[in-house]
């Protein structure tokens, strides 16, 4: 017998946790499915045994997350960690696996809080062991207190890059250099939004502190970096780049890449929810009403999965989406004060976001490989040149490009290559990014073994 929930929340980051807590408070029977073994999402990904040294390095925002997790654990929610959701039907049947055991739940409303993923950074050599994302390095810091044992080189742009550099500094780890790839001309498009940023005093103060501390520690920052290449035979050994008109090379076994984050739209796209192209953030986001509800009845999205807003805003979006779901289910006992506060906070956050998105908008060369032999699809090892060829041949989108080249057919199911492949198609065909249709993920949302799929719980009901 499968469970029945009023609201199923998928994802236990700040948006999902807040939505679940709010909905429970509003009287809904709430369940939450999350892939991680512990709540917190990626942003508050937490160790089973936090040590004071790690907490110290991570700073006060992380401490806030720990409190949120505590409240979540105390709330009346059917919380199922370690659950891999692999299918959701239009009428709210959710198929998942926990420890390889099949589970099925029916929910009257489904709220996706699947967060963000880091934007792929397809530079030459990015598949070499030792080339990782900045976010990956931060997860190692959060969950196990790992810091580089050689001076690492951080490449890219965006707040997370400086935060992690700063956290490394506090933890006593050495930084080889920070290579800044964000075009300086971004300032001009960001400037009109500076007032919104300036009103976010706390955020601004944080950023200033990171940069001041990095400067005081004489961390080498190189601006205007282009043409980044990770070099090495079988593993990263060095990173080379162009800056101030000359080619430079820094030896390092660890290159950390970051060009911001994009919504994790894998499930929302698979469900066929309507999406729109966000030209500033350079990725798709579901089209939602002011309560986070999608065009298809019974589905909502909250948090970074709905467009990048950051962890703090995710809590507000979660609160609003819980209300939206409750209203859709016929509820009327709303927390008017909470809603009003969330809207005010989101308006303020939007001002800062408009500035940050434009200021840290990635350089084209970090998004779209110039060299044809650079790998675009890591799983199937399809190069940028092969994708360009497919586009010239007539592939107008990822579906056809996949048919021609196998890009996106590996285990990551297109999660990581889709942004690069779409951008390559747009470039080759002379299209706007928004005119290349979004990729179309299919179930299972994550690879699931045949044996698990064959479980009696999932079998067709009719004959």
């Amino acid at each position, binding site marked *: 017998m499968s469970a029945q929930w009023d609201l199923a929340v998928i994802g236990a980051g700040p948006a999902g946790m807040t939505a679940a807590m709010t909905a429970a408070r509003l009287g809904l029977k709430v369940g939450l499915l999350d892939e991680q073994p512990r709540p917190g999402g990626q942003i508050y990904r937490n160790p089973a045994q936090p040590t004071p040294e790690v907490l110290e390095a991570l700073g006060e925002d992380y401490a806030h997350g720990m409190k949120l997790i505590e409240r979540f654990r105390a709330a009346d929610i059917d919380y199922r960690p370690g659950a891999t959701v692999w299918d959701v039907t239009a009428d709210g049947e959710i198929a998942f696996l926990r420890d390889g055991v099949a589970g099925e739940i029916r929910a009257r409303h489904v709220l996706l809080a699947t967060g963000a993923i880091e934007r792929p950074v397809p530079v030459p050599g990015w598949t070499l062991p030792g080339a990782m994302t900045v976010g990956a390095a931060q997860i190692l810091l959060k969950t196990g207190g790992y810091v580089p044992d050689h001076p690492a080189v951080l490449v890219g742009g965006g707040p997370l890059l400086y935060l992690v550099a700063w956290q490394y500094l506090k933890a006593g780890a050495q930084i080889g250099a920070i290579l800044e790839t964000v075009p300086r001309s971004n300032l001009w498009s960001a400037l009109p939004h500076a007032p919104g940023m300036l009103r976010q005093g706390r955020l601004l103060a944080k950023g200033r502190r990171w940069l001041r501390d990095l400067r005081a520690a004489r961390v080498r920052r190189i601006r205007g970096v282009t043409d980044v290449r990770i070099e090495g035979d079988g593993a990263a050994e060095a990173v080379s780049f162009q800056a101030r008109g000359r080619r430079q090379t820094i030896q390092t076994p660890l290159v950390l890449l970051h060009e911001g984050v994009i919504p994790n739209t894998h499930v929302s796209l698979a469900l066929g929810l309507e999406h729109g192209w966000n030209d500033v953030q350079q990725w798709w986001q579901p089209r939602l009403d002011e309560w986070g509800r999608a065009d298809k009845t019974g589905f909502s999205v909250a948090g970074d999965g709905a467009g990048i807003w950051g962890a703090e805003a995710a809590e507000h979006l979660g609160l609003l989406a819980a209300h939206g779901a409750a209203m859709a289910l016929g509820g009327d006992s709303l927390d008017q004060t909470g809603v009003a506060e969330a809207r005010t906070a989101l308006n303020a956050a939007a001002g800062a976001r408009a500035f940050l998105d434009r200021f840290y908008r990635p350089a084209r060369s970090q998004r779209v490989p110039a060299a044809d032999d650079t790998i675009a699809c890591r799983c199937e090892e399809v190069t940028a040149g092969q994708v360009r060829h*497919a586009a010239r041949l*007539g592939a107008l*989108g990822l579906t056809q490009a996949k048919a021609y080249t196998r890009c996106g*057919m590996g285990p990551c199911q297109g999660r990581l290559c889709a942004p690069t492949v779409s951008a390559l198609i747009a470039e080759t065909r002379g299209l706007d990014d928004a005119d*290349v249709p979004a990729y179309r993920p*299919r179930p299972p949302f994550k690879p699931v*073994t*045949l*044996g698990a799929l064959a479980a009696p719980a999932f079998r067709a009901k009719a004959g």
Partner: protein
Amino acid sequence: MTDIRDRQADIIVVGGGLVGSAIAYGLTRHAPRVMLLDEGDRAFRATRGNFGLVWVQSKGDGAPHYTHWTRNSQERWTDFAAELKARTGVDTHHENDGGLTLCLSEAEFLDRRALMERHRRDAGNRGFEYKMLRLPELRELVPEAGDSVYGASFTPYDGCANPLFTLRAVHEGFDQLGGIYRPDHAVVAIEHKDGIFRLETRHGTYEAPRVVIAAGNMTPGLARQVGLEIPLNPQRGEILVTERIAPFMRLPTQNMRQTVEGSIIMGDSKEDVGFDTATDTGVISDIAARAVTAFPILRDVPVVRAWAALRVLSPDGLPIYAESQTCPGAFATICHSGVTLAAAHANELGGWLMGADRPEAIAKLGPERFHVS
């Protein structure tokens, strides 16, 4: 502005799936200016739902003309694959080592044997070789067959090819032979006036004195505009594909094969659901269950992707090749075995479509067979 000549051709094929593309490819030998108008990226493309069998052993029970047409194509496939490879460098991964249909019970096995015997009888002088294998003999070919498998039929004619690479090779070949391919040009209306067909797309109108409608499930609506009634029952088929694993399946079966890259693809569900390409949790699970029954060794192989595509089926399941009486120069076809029949479509239809007599092999595959008289 586009030159007017960019919008004219000797013949226009509507539909860039494997059926339309193979026909267009073959037409380049019969007409100097062949144009292929295709849909955009999200077409209901059946080619994507084809798992790539070049298959004879279950085709045409009670319809020997269809078996013959299928075998014509199968016999041409090796040369077709070689030609595409030589021309485009794209390997279709065609294999022709025979194929199996697994039977899970003695009853299925006996039914299967009766079917094979009917094929042999219908084949006449052409002959039809087959073997019925019980589990121990089957295991000499595929040692991994599970204990629940009773046996299988084997014919040497069967094989497989990668449908996506085949489509790509045909598109590349068409391009190299001077064909004009226009994606994102779904044809919304066809007008016939003064011997010229005018095809309307979102990017303007295209003209030719001849037109072939091979637009899969969109065919009936367009064909009607040139005086052709094409009956159609779209049928949803679902397919699962696994991660790459080292080669283990030496032969394809009717609903499972291993690609050259190592993925196992499996499918064959039959649901009559109209135009819907959504997958179904229960059907995915059923396909998986059948796969692990046949090959228990597949139990911990992860599935990467499941998708549904629409089979383009006529009421009797056989292809339809139609020529319009009221609008001379207009043709339409629907066919669900786009891979198997690709070699015949590329080699045997061009002359007819450009004005020669209809090939004898497809004489009984016209739409007249559905007309109640």
